[in-house]
């Protein structure tokens, strides 16, 4: 019997979780790929962690094309988020208020490296195309 499954059944027997919760937990572990004692199967796809955040902007204006190509290492982003921890709590509140006044309801103190990691996971391949009336502007933000 799987170790996780056994623990869930023990919790159910001890009355720590209800039958419905145990059912959901078992369903959750069944969805996970089987662990092979820490050794990854060769067939299992390896998810490469993104190293860089890329921002590409292409715009065709009357004066000529405009291109912006920015590549920021993820490590720098994480360090930047940690740098935000140096901002005093009072300044956090003032910044939050100022941001919400300008329509950005953001709480800086809640942004943590793990949140950023979650955000980056969801930013795998985001493409935003902005078409102006006269100009054709394309913005692409993605991780690589």
């Amino acid at each position, binding site marked *: 019997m799987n170790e996780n499954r056994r623990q869930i059944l023990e919790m159910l027997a001890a009355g720590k979780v209800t039958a419905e919760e145990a059912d959901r937990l078992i369903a959750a572990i069944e969805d996970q790929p089987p662990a092979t004692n820490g050794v990854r199967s060769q067939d299992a796809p390896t998810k490469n962690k993104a190293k860089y955040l890329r921002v590409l902007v292409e715009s065709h204006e009357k004066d*000529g094309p405009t291109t912006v190509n920015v590549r920021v290492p993820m490590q720098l982003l994480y360090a930047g988020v940690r740098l935000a921890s140096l901002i005093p709590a009072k300044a956090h509140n003032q910044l939050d208020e100022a941001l919400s006044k300008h329509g950005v309801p953001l709480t800086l103190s809640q942004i943590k490296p793990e949140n950023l990691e979650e955000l980056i996971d969801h930013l795998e391949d985001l493409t935003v195309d902005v078409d102006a009336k006269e100009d054709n502007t394309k913005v692409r933000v993605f991780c690589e």
Partner: protein
Amino acid sequence: MTPNFAVVGIQTPTWRCPRLWLPVFLLWIPVILHSPLIFLVLVAVAIAARVTIWKLIAIVWGILSGLPGTHVYVHAEGSQVLVRIL
């Protein structure tokens, strides 16, 4: 790893600067020479921000180590600016 070189290139429609390879690693010399002063500044910042000096050093080191790989290229109206940190 901290940055070793910075590549800077600037080009305008009328003027072009050759790509400059700036040896950023040479900045370690003034940093080491001024290390007592830098340490005092770090201590002052750590006290002001109410964090430990080690945490502050870790953050600064994290930023320095995160810089290599940064690439910024802007081309507009015939002018180009390129900054790469290696």
